[in-house]
Structures are given as structure tokens and as C-alpha cells.
């Protein structure tokens, strides 16, 4: 087990190095670079000025030199300068991370408080009209484009309340912040909650068929005791692992939501940075996300080994 963890840890490092190469190469395969973008706002491209600009930004160096500069800098805590704002990359990225993190946590909170209880109810009331209604609801949650839902929410707010729940300036109090983030978080969380509800339901159903549940029932334990203390506590494990993974993947859903609600988080920032070909921002942000995802996967894998003795690791 110990050696497995050590091995797994090294594999994780290899993955991250591979990731850095892939994202680095991929970005340079995308046609156009920052010099083209900067000239765009001037309405023309001047070849000699463009060459000077590429020289200044180090884009004319050989590709392996550029890669090494990035890795070397990263190991020394120097993430370089954003091409667009000409400020340190870390100053551009760091203030945006907490915003997206808060949004993600809140979205996760919504999806869990909605998804788990509804999933349990659906499983307990299996094949009743309630079950069917909840399943259709959860499926529609997975079927609505999240930006569409967000747009409908915005329009409804303006129409009925005359205000718009978008980000225009940083919130002053914790309460304001909660209010500001809760609507976009609910819009994203709706989709995740559908996923969690479905998982909870199937996981519950599986556990309820197990022998020990039947035994508990045979011993005369009440329905609610069986459902909530025995079944749920066992069914929740796979759900938790999925929530862990889902957390890292929420960022995909957050891209469009941050766009519609105008929230200055990292998710939208990454899209803009790709469009601007702002390599230092994209590279470092993607690596940051990758580290989170890879570490989460690592922990989930460890959990699997601990939980499922059927899986053999040579």
C-alpha cells in the first residue's frame, strides 16, 4: 500500500509535466499570437513593429527556450507578466481565484442540499409518481443549456423586480457577497444537483438491495431508520467521491455563467486569455486547474483502494 502511494505520487508528477508540455504546445499551435492581437486594435499589422514586439516578449526565442523559461520561472515562483495588462501574472490571477472558488463552493452547496435529499426521496419512493416527477425534473436540469437558464433568470429579475443580479462592483459585506453569488451559483448548481440526485438515487437503490439492509428490515427496524441511517450512510460514499470530482469540473459550467452574470472570476478570464493569446495567463491558469484536478483524482484513487478490495494493484 505504501509503495503504491509513492508510485502513484510519482505518476501524478509525470502527469503534471506532460500537462505542461501539452498546454504549452497546444497554445502555440493556435494560429495568431499576442502581437497580432495588439495590432488588431491599431487596425493594421506593421511587420517590423510586430517583429520588434515579438522580440520584446520573447516570442522569437526557440520554442524549447520559451518552455524552459516558463518552467524555470514557475519553480522559482515567477509566473511572468501578462502580455495584455503588462502586470505580473500572479497579480492578475490571484484576486480572481477566491471569486470563482466562492462561486464553486456555493454552487456545490446548492447542488448537494438539493440533490441528496431529492435523490433519497426518489429512491425510497421508487416507481411512484413522485419518483417519476423527480426523475423528469433532474433530467430537465441536465437538458437546459445553463446560459439559457441564466439569461431567463436575468430577464425575469429585471422584469419583476427592476434590478439585475449581476456583478458591477466588489461587494462590501459578507451578506452582499452571498446575495450576489447565490443566484449564479444556483443556476450552475441546478445542473450539478441533477447529477448528484441521480447518483444518490441509484446508489441508494443498490445499497437497499444488499443483504444487511434486508437483515435490518427483517430484524424489525423501522423504514425510516433503515432508509436514513443504514442505507444513506452507505450510499453516500460514492456520492462524495463524485462531488469531489464534480467540484473540479464545475469550472466548465462556470465559464458561461460568469460571462452572463459578468463575474470577474478565473473561469471567464481563461476564455478571454485564450482569445487574447495571453500565454502567461493561460499556461499558468490551466496548470493551476490541472494541479487541483490531478490532486483530487489522486485522493479519489487512494479512497478507491481503501474501499474496494476487488481492485488489484500490482
Amino acid at each position, binding site marked *: 500500500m505504501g509503495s503504491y502511494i509513492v508510485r502513484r505520487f510519482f*505518476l*501524478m508528477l*509525470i*502527469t*503534471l509535466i*506532460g*500537462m505542461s508540455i*501539452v*498546454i504549452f504546445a*497546444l*497554445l502555440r*499551435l*493556435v*494560429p495568431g499570437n499576442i502581437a497580432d492581437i495588439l495590432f488588431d486594435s491599431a487596425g493594421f499589422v506593421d511587420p517590423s513593429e510586430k517583429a520588434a514586439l515579438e522580440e520584446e516578449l520573447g516570442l522569437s526565442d526557440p520554442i524549447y527556450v520559451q518552455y524552459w523559461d516558463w518552467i524555470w520561472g514557475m519553480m522559482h515562483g515567477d509566473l511572468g507578466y501578462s502580455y495584455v495588462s503588462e502586470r505580473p501574472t500572479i497579480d492578475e490571477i490571484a484576486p480572481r481565484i477566491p471569486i470563482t472558488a466562492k462561486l464553486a463552493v456555493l454552487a456545490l452547496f446548492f447542488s448537494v442540499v438539493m440533490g441528496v435529499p431529492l435523490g433519497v426521496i426518489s429512491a425510497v419512493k*421508487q*416507481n411512484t409518481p413522485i*419518483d*417519476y416527477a423527480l*426523475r*423528469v425534473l433532474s*433530467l*430537465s436540469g*441536465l*437538458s*437546459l*443549456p*445553463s*446560459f*439559457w437558464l441564466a*439569461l431567463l433568470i436575468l*430577464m425575469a429579475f429585471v422584469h419583476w423586480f427592476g434590478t439585475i443580479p449581476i456583478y458591477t462592483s466588489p461587494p462590501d459585506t459578507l451578506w452582499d457577497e452571498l446575495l450576489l453569488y447565490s443566484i449564479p451559483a444556483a443556476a450552475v448548481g441546478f445542473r450539478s444537483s441533477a447529477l448528484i440526485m441521480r447518483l444518490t438515487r*441509484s446508489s441508494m*437503490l*443498490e445499497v437497499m438491495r444488499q443483504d444487511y439492509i434486508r437483515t435490518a428490515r427483517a430484524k424489525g427496524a423501522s423504514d425510516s431508520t433503515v432508509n436514513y441511517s443504514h442505507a444513506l450512510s452507505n450510499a453516500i460514499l460514492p456520492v462524495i467521491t463524485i462531488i469531489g470530482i464534480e467540484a*473540479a*469540473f464545475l*469550472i*466548465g*459550467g462556470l*465559464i*458561461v455563467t460568469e*460571462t452572463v452574470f459578468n463575474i470577474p472570476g478565473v473561469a471567464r478570464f*481563461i*476564455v478571454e486569455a*485564450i*482569445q487574447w493569446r495571453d500565454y502567461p495567463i493561460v499556461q499558468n491558469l*490551466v496548470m493551476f*486547474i*490541472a494541479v487541483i*484536478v*490531478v490532486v483530487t*483524482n489522486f485522493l479519489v484513487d487512494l479512497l478507491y483502494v481503501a474501499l474496494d478490495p*476487488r*481492485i*488489484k494493484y500490482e
Partner: protein
Amino acid sequence: MTKIVNHSVELAKAGAGVESRLGKAWFMARTYPLGAIGLLLFLGLVFCGLFADLLAPMDPVTTSAASSLAAPGGIHALGADMMGRDMLSRIIHGARISLAVGVGSTIIGCFFGVILGLASGYLLGWFDLITQRFIDIMQALPLLVMALVMAAALGPSLENTVIAISIPLIPHVARVIRSNTLSLREMPFVEAAKAIGMSESRIALKHVLPNTLAPLIVLATAQLGSAILTEASLSFLGLGIPEPHPSWGRMLSESAAEYVRAAPWLVIFPGIAISLAVFGANLLGDAVRDILDPRQRS
């Protein structure tokens, strides 16, 4: 993923005593009413996609000054967009694009995913180690971010959007197939085949592959809906299928959203089209999973 399923037996059991094909279909529809609805919705999508040219009352790209933002009714049953293009015709033709994106990217993603997953789970060793790292790398990025980078790298077009969406599916499929293959390797019938001296590749193709089909179909039907949604998100962000193709996602994006209160039909009908298509695909996916993976059957 440790359960081995014999589909024909399961299906025979499900339709026990029913002989005619029609009767069987009726029996399945009654057993899985939601699935039947999903199948109908999906068939509707396929039908619209295949016969769009015959079904659509107008050309989906012809503009008309007279019909700009025309309200539903009259010659434009679902209204017209800002450029006077008929919404009904655009939605019908849009089915073709959603179908192409959904089915196309799922097939491409599954094809490469299965090859990678099967080879990786069966061969193990160095090959597995390398593909696993590769898969880890691809999975370390959220699907939409991956699709965004790919879409930017390839440039906006229908083909490139299909490819951009299929690539993030590969690791997903490969992972499931690999873990299924891993558990299959330990199964008595595979060990038995080994014992009687069957070659490795024959075992993989004859015994392992058929038994991974069920999870694959489950996965593929589940991916169908999410591929259509990803295309919509990409188009919304301006990186998906370009004008003048009548993509539903594009129809919902930017300009349509601007005119939503003046012309709500621009946002409502394509939104409903996407939601119904994805809803149908999801219902179908659920039913297929229930049939093929009875562990989770309700």
C-alpha cells in the same frame, strides 16, 4: 462494472411470452415509458435531420428585409430572426447540425476511447502506463476548457467543432472501458479461455469486447446530450459553428439574446429545441442503461 450481462437473455426475460416484434416493442414501451418518449424525441430529431430539405418550408439562410423580426404566425409559423430568416426552417435544419455534432462527436470519441481503453486495460504494462498518463493529462482539464482550446486551435467550422467536442470524450470513454476490461480479465470465463490456449488478441476481441459493449452504449447515449449542450455553449461563446449554419446554440447566442424582449421567439424556440433534443437523448440514455445494466434498474 463487475456485472456481466447477457443481453439476449435479459431482453427475452423482459419480453417473456411476447412473440411478434411489434408486440415486443409495445411491451418495452410499456415497461420503459420514459425511455419510449426519449426514443420518440430522438427519432424526431433524426427525422428532421435527415429530411430537413423536404420538411423546412423555406430556405434557412435566405434573408428578407420584409420579414425582419416577424412575429410567429402567417408565413413564418415560428417567426423570423433579425435578418428575416424563417425560424421554423432554421430549427428544422438545425436538427441536422445538432445530430451531426451529437452523433459525430460521440462516434469519434467512442471509437478512439474504446481502442485506447481496451488496449490499455488488456495489455497493461508500459502501454497502459503511457496511455493512463495521457488520459490523466486530458482529464485534468474541464471539458469545456479543452473544447475551447481545441476550437480556437482548429478554427470555427462544423467539422472542427465536432472534433473539438469529441476529443474530451476520449479519456472519459477510455477510462470506463479500461476499468471494465480490468475487471473482466479476472473473470472465470476469460481465465478459462486462457487455460485452453486462446491467443490474447482473440480473447480481447471475442470475450472482452462484447462484454464492454453494454457500458459503452450506456456511455454513448449519455454523451449524446452533453455533446449537443457543449456545442451550444461553444457557439454561445462565439467559438462553435459559424454563421450562416443554423446551429441552435448560435441561434441562442449574442444577437438573439439582445432582442429577447422585442422578439422572445428568437430565444424561446431554439432553447426549447435544444432542451427537447437533450432531454430525449437523456431519457433514452437512462432507459438504455436500465435495460443493459440491470444493476441499476428501477
